[in-house]
């Protein structure tokens, strides 16, 4: 194998000899440099390979033919190999990326580029502290050179700031080194470690100076203004070198020198990391410039890595996994984002929607951002999981909180940015992409995918089958050029196969009712909701992979056996649904709310799982039952995550606009199916925790009230909506309120109600949304007052909506009544009379918007411009009628569904169940015979209809204009048509109930965070002196913090 020493020889030799080519052809000199970089990469790569495959020993390389400590020695071990490979391959890719710049700027810059990486290599390898100083200087000076690659004014001034700052820092480091030499008599790092200077009086200070200098090299918040300015001003090709190369090397220096400081330094470093992570993410919120955002983000990531490093002892053998998964993913993703920023070459993130021109790049940006955010399936996810679990196990709940909060801030700015990319805008100038700039980006993205797979395997947390959906999604993505029709068939058949395997083969034999019910809602529902996809023309790029991912996430929830698998599936599902929603026309802002709330909820859930793990030490879902001490906290935290998903009162504000703006069939998917995931989660949680007495009964009580109020507010809001989709969305909030209420009763009847509601709501909500979607598809408007009289044009849709609202309103004889009836029984048995009354009132309120829905769309006068409308497309109608059949079956013969659920529940709630006698269901309070009622009703109805029809048969149909168009202006219906601002008197009486106080409260929180961040960041004055000042203050304060005085 080629000795590592040749890295130095080759790099230096090339750099020096480049001088010969000053006036020769620059392609030659470039290719020379490129070859050298490639060779460096090769050397480090082969060492890494050796360490990974054959048990290569760590080796020492001596220079000048003397053994250390008398001469300088280098070391090549596993960690060195990893870091060198990262750094050198980054160098190679950067060389490709910067090809045109370097060529244009000439040989000098190539030398500088070369030497930068040479310096970093030696910094990683050397075991002599002064030598380390020298080569650190080399790379930072080289960076000074690269900063002015393009001689822009701001680049020059920020380069000067950088010179001052790094000068001061290296001065401090130098003093430290000399003093260390004085106290230990050696410069060989191993000697310094064994000398443990911390005991000597001055020696401890010397160590302090070295450590603080290294920490300052890592640009800790707040002593990092200079670094930020550099990041912002440099050419985008240099950014990765700073964040991926220099920062990585500096991390390794810290790792290498940490033993000198000893364990006493772990805590300070951890705290520095926490401050950096939280601080820079917080200040990132307000940023507008893409490079600066990336700067804040990479500094925060370094902070995170410092935290991990400080936990090295407590993480034990997990340390390497956590550290490298986070480090490598941030290194890859940052590089990719910086490079894309360079390709776009627009500093303001508002201008990034130019990417609309090339969807491929958008996908890449997505991959990179979600990698940064540590979302599954990307590597950092596993690392963060282990980190949080470990932190909570060692009882550092504060740190957990801070880390999650910081991650939330990061999510805010990264996802807002992502949203800005997708904002629609006409007359974008088109974007010309140089191919050589594209190569590294693509390479990096593939590296991420590969590495995610490797980490997944390495973590051993999830089985390989969790990756099947991703493979399918990738396949469909690969065949994205096919027309919708084929892809739709593919998607449907995939889901069908999966549901066959999951439900029919797995759970029906196990007779696991809970999973059968929700599995069928998720997957069979998916099949039904995919059918309308056939109406769409064209390709519908990127739709189907996301759909597959979303439903696989849902299936994953069903299958999950450990909290990790559950959380994994949960995040997948959330992410995919977010991306599906954001595809809508004006969906950017709503989907941002959605993902923000979901992330916050996911993080609290995360913390809750951490708590559970801290107590039980197991990540199995069943282990939740054993949580006793932290029970209340864990329960509440986890529950919040689910409450967000079901849009419980207080965290409901994301739902209406997201539903309204999503594509029509997406809306029916998420409203009928996705929202049930929260219900499923709550059921799992309550089954495992609430049944034990560890959880105080107050929490379900509070949940009950939340549910009741949610039901009332949701329905109240619904009746005032003019946007038909919003109307149904608000009604969803109401129904979810019922379900939450029913669940929190923690009684047999209550849960039976919840299950029944979940099924029935799935049926009629899907039905309504599909029918409405069909109508919108034809009328091209969502304003309810611009429709009317459509019963003449689309009778079939009318029938669906009629059945839908009868079920929704819970009128006998249809299935909705079953829910209502059980509800009464449950409430009276439980004794929650007042909450119950509220829920019933809201149930009656529902009647108002039901009527508004059906009347304003289908009855009343037909609008002029709708005279020629056709019935909705068959692809919209088929699923509707499937659902109608479902409703009818349950209405006539509810027993088949309700009885097994009852048996299942009586395992947990043996008392006060439902007793079946033939078709009559009875509790100790009342009884109800759906079948008889249906027959009686049908008979009577038929008789009366026949009478009426026979009596007035030969009638002629009255056209609309046979009666007057009283007081209506067809062209401006909202002015006079009663359908606009329907229920005005109701609003006059009860409007105060629907004041948007929750929304404004959240708005206030959000905006205050922003303004605070805006104020805080003002201390980055942009003056180089101030930054140097910050550094010295940082040193002094840190000294005070460590020694508690001078």
């Amino acid at each position, binding site marked *: 194998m080629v000795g590592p020493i040749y890295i130095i020889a080759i790099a230096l030799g090339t750099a020096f000899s480049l001088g010969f080519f000053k006036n020769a052809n620059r392609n030659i000199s470039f290719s020379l440099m490129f070859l050298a970089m490639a060779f460096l990469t090769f050397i480090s790569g082969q060492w890494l390979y050796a360490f990974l495959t054959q048990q290569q020993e760590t080796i020492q390389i001596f220079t000048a033919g003397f053994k250390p400590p008398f*001469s300088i020695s280098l070391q090549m071990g596993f960690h060195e190999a990893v870091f060198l490979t990262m750094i050198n391959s980054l160098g190679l890719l950067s060389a490709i990326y910067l090809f045109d710049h370097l060529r244009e700027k000439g040989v000098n810059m190539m030398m500088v580029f070369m030497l930068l990486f040479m310096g970093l290599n030696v910094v990683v390898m050397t075991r002599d502290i002064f030598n380390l100083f020298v080569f650190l200087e080399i790379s930072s000076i080289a960076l000074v050179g690269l900063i*002015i690659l393009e001689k822009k004014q701001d680049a020059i001034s920020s380069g000067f700031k950088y010179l001052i700052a790094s000068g001061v820092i290296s001065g401090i480091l130098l003093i430290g080194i000399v003093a260390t030499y004085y106290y230990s008599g050696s410069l060989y790092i191993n000697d310094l470690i064994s000398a443990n200077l911390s005991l000597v*009086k001055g020696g401890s*200070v010397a160590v302090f100076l070295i450590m603080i200098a290294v920490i300052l090299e890592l640009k800790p918040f707040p002593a990092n203004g200079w670094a930020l300015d550099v990041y912002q001003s440099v050419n985008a090709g240099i950014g990765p070198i700073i964040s991926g190369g220099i920062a990585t090397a500096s991390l390794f220096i810290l790792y290498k020198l940490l033993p000198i400081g000893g364990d006493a330094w772990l805590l300070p470093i951890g705290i520095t990391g926490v401050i950096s992570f939280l601080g820079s993410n917080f200040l990132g919120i307000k940023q507008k410039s893409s490079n600066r955002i990336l700067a804040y983000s990479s500094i925060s990531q370094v902070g995170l890595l410092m935290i991990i490093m400080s936990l090295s002892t407590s993480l034990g053998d997990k340390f390497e996994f956590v550290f490298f998964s986070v480090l490598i993913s941030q290194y890859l993703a940052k590089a990719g984002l910086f490079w894309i920023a360079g390709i776009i070459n627009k500093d303001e993130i508002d201008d990034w929607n130019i990417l609309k021109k090339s969807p491929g790049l958008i996908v890449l940006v997505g991959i990179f951002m979600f990698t940064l955010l540590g979302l599954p399936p990307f590597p950092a996810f596993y690392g963060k999981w282990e980190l949080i679990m470990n932190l909570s196990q060692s009882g550092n709940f504060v740190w957990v909180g801070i880390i999650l909060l910081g991650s939330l801030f990061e999510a805010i700015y990264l996802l807002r940015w992502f949203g800005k990319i997708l904002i629609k805008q006409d007359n974008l100038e088109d974007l010309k992409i140089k191919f050589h700039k594209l190569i590294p980006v693509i390479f990096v993205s593939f590296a991420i995918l590969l590495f995610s797979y490797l980490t997944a395997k390495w973590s051993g947390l999830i089985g390989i089958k969790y990756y099947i959906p991703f493979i399918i999604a990738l396949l469909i993505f690969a065949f994205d050029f096919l027309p919708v029709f084929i892809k739709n068939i593919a998607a449907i058949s995939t889901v069908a196969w999966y549901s066959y395997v999951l439900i029919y083969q797995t759970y029906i034999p196990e007779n696991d009712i809970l999973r059968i019910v929700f599995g069928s809602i998720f997957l069979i529902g998916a099949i039904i909701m995919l059918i309308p996809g056939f109406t769409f023309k064209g390709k519908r790029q990127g739709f189907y992979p996301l759909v597959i991912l979303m439903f696989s996430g849902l299936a994953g929830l069903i299958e999950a056996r450990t909290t990790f698998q559950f959380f994994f599936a949960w995040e997948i599902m959330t992410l995919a649904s977010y991306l599906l929603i954001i595809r809508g026309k004006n969906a950017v802002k709503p989907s941002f709310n959605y993902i923000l709330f979901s992330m916050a909820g996911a993080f609290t859930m995360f913390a809750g799982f951490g708590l559970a793990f801290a107590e039980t030490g197991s990540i199995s879902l069943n282990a939740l039952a054993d949580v006793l001490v932290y029970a209340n906290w864990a329960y509440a935290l986890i529950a919040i995550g689910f409450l967000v998903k079901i849009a419980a009162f207080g965290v409901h504000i994301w739902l209406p606009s997201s539903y309204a703006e999503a594509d029509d069939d997406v809306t029916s998917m998420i409203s009928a199916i996705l929202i049930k995931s929260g219900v499923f989660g709550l059921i799992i949680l309550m089954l495992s925790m609430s049944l034990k007495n560890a959880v105080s009964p107050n929490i379900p009580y509070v949940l009950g009230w939340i549910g009741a109020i949610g039901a009332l507010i949701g329905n109240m809001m619904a009746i005032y909506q003019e946007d038909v989709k919003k109307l149904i969305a608000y009604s969803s909030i109401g129904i979810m309120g019922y379900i939450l209420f029913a669940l929190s009763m923690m009684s047999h009847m209550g849960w039976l109600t919840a299950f029944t509601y979940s099924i029935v709501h799935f049926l009629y909500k899907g039905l309504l949304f599909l029918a409405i979607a069909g109508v919108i598809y034809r009328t091209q408007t969502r304003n309810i007052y611009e429709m009317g009289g459509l019963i003449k044009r689309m009778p079939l849709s009318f029938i669906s909506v009629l059945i839908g609202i009868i079920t929704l309103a819970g009128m006998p004889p249809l299935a909705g009544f079953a829910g209502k009836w059980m509800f009464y029984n449950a409430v009276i048995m439980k004794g929650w009379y007042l909450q119950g009354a509220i829920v019933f009132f809201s149930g009656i309120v529902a009647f108002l918007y039901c009527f508004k829905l059906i009347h304003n769309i289908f009855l009343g006068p037909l609008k002029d411009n709708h005279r020629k409308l056709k019935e909705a497309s068959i692809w919209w109608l088929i699923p509707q009628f499937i659902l109608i059949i479902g409703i009818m079956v349950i209405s006539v013969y509810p027993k088949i569904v309700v009885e097994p659920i009852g048996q299942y529940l009586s395992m947990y709630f043996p008392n006060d169940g439902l007793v079946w006698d033939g078709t009559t269901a009875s509790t100790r309070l009342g009884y109800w015979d759906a079948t008889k009622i249906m027959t009686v009703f049908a008979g009577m109805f038929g008789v009366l209809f026949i009478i009426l029809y026979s009596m007035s048969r030969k009638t002629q149909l009255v056209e609309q204009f046979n009666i007057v168009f009283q007081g209506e202006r067809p062209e401006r219906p909202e002015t006079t048509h009663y359908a606009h601002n329907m229920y005005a008197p109701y609003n006059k009486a009860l409007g105060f109930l629907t004041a948007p106080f929750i929304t404004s409260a959240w708005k206030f929180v959000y905006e205050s965070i922003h303004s605070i961040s805006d104020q805080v960041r003002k201390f980055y004055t942009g003056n180089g002196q101030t930054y140097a000042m910050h550094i010295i203050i940082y040193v002094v304060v840190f000294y005070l913090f460590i020694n508690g005085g001078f």
Partner: protein
Amino acid sequence: MVKNSFIFLVLIGLAAILLNLFAGFNGSTELGTIAAHYASKGIEEVGSANLVTSVVVSYRGLDTLGEVTILFLSAAIIGFFLKVDNTDNKNRQLKYTSEILNTASQVLVPIMLLFGAYVFINGHLSPGGGFQGGAIIASGLVLMFIAQPKKEMGHKMINIVESVSGVSFVLLGVAGILFASGFLDNKILSLGKFGTLFSAGIIPIIYILVGLKVGSELTGIALSLKENQNEA
């Protein structure tokens, strides 16, 4: 002034830290083990009378390589940064320099160059060495620039010297791996008779290279600065 007094306070704090740093300092009386090793074994191991030289060039040769590289870097960056194209070269106006300076420089410059060469050739025997010698040479050239501002001088020559010396330095190092026990190993040549010019292995050669390199690099820097000089 509030700001300055605050800065003053902070510096006081820093001073306190530094005082703590040397609290345990009471002029050392004995050499540390490593230093002692250098002092006693230095002769037969490296064979250079000037121990500092043996440390700089041999024991810690990698550092030296590094610092040469740093100078090289700065020269390259400055050369790139301050490159002047002929357009703004036209309207340069430079002050007239005095007769005395001109005459003196004509006398002095050759001597300085010669002295510089002497200093780095004898680096292993007497005080001095590559850096010192190179600095002297460079200052000689700087004197020439000052004396005759109008005189144009191309970078080509400088670059060639730089590169040649640098590359051969590296090659010598590699030769160390091939013919002796490690990178930059001194013993590829025999140590020779102690105290003579041709002794101490490759140290004199390296020092000559370093001298040339440092000289040319410093000159290059000075030259680039000079070309930007404009007293209009």
